[in-house]
């Protein structure tokens, strides 16, 4: 698989300017919003006061710029050569942290060396991206070989478990975003589809688990219908037999129609049983085609159907028995099942009030009342987007969102123009991490994702996270700068 970059003309050996401009813009906007978020009307402090969060962030920004400059000076070969060594050091640091770290607000992820507090998990992001890139770069690498899949899974999952043990579940989820890299490099789309299907089943199953439709809950009923539709769609997509697929859908539709007509004669119909019959029919239909045509794909779709149903049935059990109460609560709040104003829902509720009260144009810089202390928690770290929404309104918040979108798209474009596998997979790794952070953080603040405490890149207050993101991005810019051109 020889890949050639698209022959985009670019200045040789220059750092990609648009990305650099995005970076500087985000960091400065972040700084202003941190100032606004912790601004105190009674004791106004300057933007540069080092005793304030804004002043400290300026220190982090300054050091990040130095870091970025230094990273651009290092030869690309360095990252490639030492990728595995970095990985080893990273894993050792995570283990050491796990052993020596003190409990800070329930998390054991901070390494304290004298006056410096570091979170090794933040730096693991670029380390995993480098290690993955190095693996992909090997000449004989084929992703779908079992040995390679195991290696890739191990590289991603080992730090995931270590970081979960440090009680930083949010950061562990970030590592899982590298699946996007695998998808780009040849992981069958079916995997991704199954992942998405599982999320949809889970959400529907839990959201509508409290009302019954005969033998099934409303959630189960809807997911069973979805499983049948997915199966029909897969027959069409993978076997290219539209007729077979349509016959299945019509049969199931007919079954429901008959049931409906019967119910008009005041016969009580258990719709749950009807759905189960429809599902069983679909399963038999698939088995029949498998035996008749000896086509393996039918068997796979059959297994997908059985697996999906088993997943739906077990999801509820897992939700209520495996997840901890506060995690259940966060998900329920997100799904709109609970308000929980004295716990998780309070934060999201206040966050929505803050953003919602911003209106079209916002209340103006430093004029937000909700985000100034105490109403919105973590207003200068994880909930920094609130300040933007409140003070700059729909226009400001949308602008930031659109800018972030173009930033990630730009990263994809840079990744695609790499001439080495190393460069491209690292680039995709960088884009995945940023995309995941933006999606989860802003999604949480505007109330469509559960509360998962991860920062908004370049905006949230914090040295470790800013340094981590700077390193992640600038290694990529360095690789991009020295790519071979046609």
């Amino acid at each position, binding site marked *: *698989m*020889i*890949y*050639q*970059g*698209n022959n985009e003309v670019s200045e040789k050996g220059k750092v990609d300017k648009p990305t650099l401009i995005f970076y500087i813009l985000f960091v400065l906007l972040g700084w202003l919003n941190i100032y606004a978020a912790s601004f105190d*009307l*009674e*004791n106004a402090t300057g933007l540069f006061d080092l005793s304030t969060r804004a002043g400290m962030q300026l220190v982090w920004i300054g050091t990040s710029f130095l870091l970025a400059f230094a990273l651009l000076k290092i030869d690309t070969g360095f990252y490639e050569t030492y990728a595995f060594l970095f990985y080893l050091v990273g894993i050792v640091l995570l283990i050491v942290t796990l052993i020596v770290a003190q409990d800070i*607000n329930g998390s054991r992820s901070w390494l304290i060396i004298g006056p410096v507090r570091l979170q090794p998990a933040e730096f693991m992001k670029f380390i995993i991206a480098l290690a993955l890139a190095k693996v992909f770069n090997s000449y004989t690498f084929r992703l779908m070989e079992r040995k390679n899949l195991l290696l890739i899974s191990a590289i991603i999952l080992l730090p995931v478990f270590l970081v979960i043990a440090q009680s930083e579940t949010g950061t562990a989820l970030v590592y899982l975003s590298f699946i*996007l890299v695998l*998808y*780009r*490099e*040849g992981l069958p*789309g079916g995997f991704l589809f199954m992942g998405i299907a599982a999320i949809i089943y889970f959400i529907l199953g839990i959201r509508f688990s409290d009302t019954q439709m005969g033998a099934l809950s409303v959630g189960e009923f809807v997911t069973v219908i979805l499983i049948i539709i997915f199966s029909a769609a897969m027959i069409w997509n993978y076997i290219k037999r539209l007729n077979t697929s349509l016959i299945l859908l019509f049969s199931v539709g007919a079954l429901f129609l008959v049931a409906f007509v019967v119910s008009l004669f005041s016969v009580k119909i258990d719709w749950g049983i009807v759905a189960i019959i429809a599902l069983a029919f679909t399963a038999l239909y698939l088995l029949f085609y498998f035996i008749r045509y000896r086509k393996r794909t039918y068997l796979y779709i059959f297994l997908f159907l059985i697996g999906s149903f088993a997943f739906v049935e077990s999801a509820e059990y897992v939700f209520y028995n495996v997840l901890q109460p506060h995690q259940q609560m966060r998900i329920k709040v997100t799904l709109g099942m609970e*308000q*929980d*104003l*004295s716990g998780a829902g*309070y934060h999201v*509720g*206040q966050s*929505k*009030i*803050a*953003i*919602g*009260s*911003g*209106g*079209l144009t916002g209340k103006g810089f430093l004029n937000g*009342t*909700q985000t*100034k*202390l*105490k*109403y919105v928690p973590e207003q200068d770290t994880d909930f920094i987007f609130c300040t933007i*929404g409140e003070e700059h*309104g*729909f226009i400001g*918040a*949308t602008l930031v*969102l*659109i800018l*972030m*979108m173009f930033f*990630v*798209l730009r990263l*994809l474009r840079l990744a*695609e123009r790499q001439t080495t596998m190393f460069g491209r997979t690292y680039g995709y790794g960088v884009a995945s991490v940023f*995309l995941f952070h933006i*999606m989860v953080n*802003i*999604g949480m603040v*505007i*109330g*469509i994702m559960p509360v998962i405490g991860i920062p908004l890149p370049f905006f949230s207050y914090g040295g470790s996270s800013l340094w981590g993101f700077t390193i992640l991005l600038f290694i990529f810019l360095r690789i991009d700068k020295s790519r071979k051109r046609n």
Partner: protein
Amino acid sequence: MNSNSNPLSRRRYVIAAVIVIIILVYVGQLFKLQLMSPQYRDYADSNAFLRRTLYPARGAIYDRNGKLLVYNRPTYDVMMVVREMKQFDTLDFCRTLDIDMERFHALNADMRDRRKNPGYSSYTPQLFMSQLNVEEYGLLQEKLYKFPGIYIQGRTERQYNYSNMGLILGYVAEVDKNKMAADPYYMRGDYVGKSGIELSHEEDLRGEKGVEILLRDAHGRVQGKYEDGAHDKAPVSGKDLTLGIDIDLQAYGEQLMHNKVGAIVMIDPKTGEILCMVSAPTYDPVLLTGKSSDFSDNYRQLVNNPFKPLINRAIAGTYPPGSTFKPAQGLVFLQEGIITPQTLYSCYGGYPPLGGRPACHPHGSPLALQAALATSCNSYFCYGLNAMLNNRSKYESVTAAFDVWRDYMVKLGYGYPLGVDLPSEKGRFIPNSKFYTNFFKTDRWNAHRIISIAIGQGEILATPLQIANMGAMIANRGYYYTPHVVKERKGAALESTYTTRHDSGINREYFELTVEGMADAVTMGTCRGINLSPLVEVCGKTGTSQNPHGDDHSVFMGFAPKDDPQVAIAVLVENGRFGATNAVPIARLMLQKFFRGEIPESDQWLETSIINRAILPHVYTRNLPVNKPSNR
């Protein structure tokens, strides 16, 4: 191969499309929140939800007979939301609270000072002034409608039925900044245990705060509970505690120790429950309650008092145990086979090998262990220690022998804190061989250089609690339960450390012999003053502890009755001279009180005499205020 013909390369468009879709969905949500939901603006104007903390009642404390010692009385805090204070009549407000403008501004400045109040915000209720009583609350409540932004927060304050045992109960006070930073449970204005049981059992006593969510209108006025309180969390009251302490015994002990410095500890040997723990001087717990101004005045006075009434001498006092250390010595020598019950040593008014030092008093000679305990012979135990440390057939070196000795002392409860459920217990000191090797700068020292430790002097230091615990150990013939003041926690079992037996590793028969020696001391030896027969057969050991602060300390350790003991006791009177002079009569009166519940007429002259005795060591007042007397 061209990239566009590579099927995987097309996936970049799928990924890009997903990104664009996510952003569009988010913009859609922003659109909904910011442009289609006018209620959020209203909520924000009033910040519709007001979270009000509901404070639980702190647990009450009872004595062992169910007498209520500590309970709660309601008080009220004035809370202020600075943002809401418009058209505020400060003068009227000050008049209502009975404070002047100066005080108003000082309180206001304190509230806004982020160093003192890290959680300050002008949008949420902040503590302005604490602890209004019911009358003041009534006055303010009537006029509350005139003062927008002022709220009243109900709380409770500690109340005491007895003026005793301030040191054991401890006090509660407003939480400080460090505690708030360390434990997010606490907010400014919260009360937290600072010493005594209030501190050691803080988590039992404090309960769990509740929360109430109120709905406010656009003017900030409370409209009622949000969804009829469906989201509220009720506070959980603190656990009530029952102490092992008998308040009558405790009060009587404090009365006897009036104008003296020292401690009385009584333990039920069967359970380790502390029946009374007197440390003199002490203070009335009510002094450390009330408004913060009264509190700090009283606190300053107690801190500056030269007799240091804030130190619980029963668990933190530093005393050489003196002759009360001898039973432990006899036990170790017997167990290690250094002596037998029949071994005789002679005494000629002092320890002969060192020319009659340490000195002794007249008694028969030569004598065996039982008689040596009864007469408190110094020479006997010096011989014993010398024989043990010089026994090269049993121990390789003097340091090895000494460390065996030390391990026994630790097992007998000396040298480390026993683990009583009170803060700031001290372990005091039992040296190990390294200590002497460093001290003499050689490991070839011998028993004679450290001989005074055999009689509880020299480097040996113990607390009165450890001495009483040794009494309990002998009473039980070889084991003890960790002494503890809290006997029961309502709704929770006692921690297992207080129900675990600690064994001495010394044979029961040797304890029986020791008991006989201590019984003889009462019937015909050094502490005849505590002979309560025929009421009860008492066993005891006096101590006269030499110290560098003036007259000897008067010490007594004992238990009663001899068979099936119900109480172990230690009494220590600083500078009270011979054990028999002060410690023995005080112990006698305490045992009378314990067994009879009252003092018989025949002993009332003694009671009067003891109560009227003033023994105030001038070590505490000498040198004031220039030099602090050194400890050693």
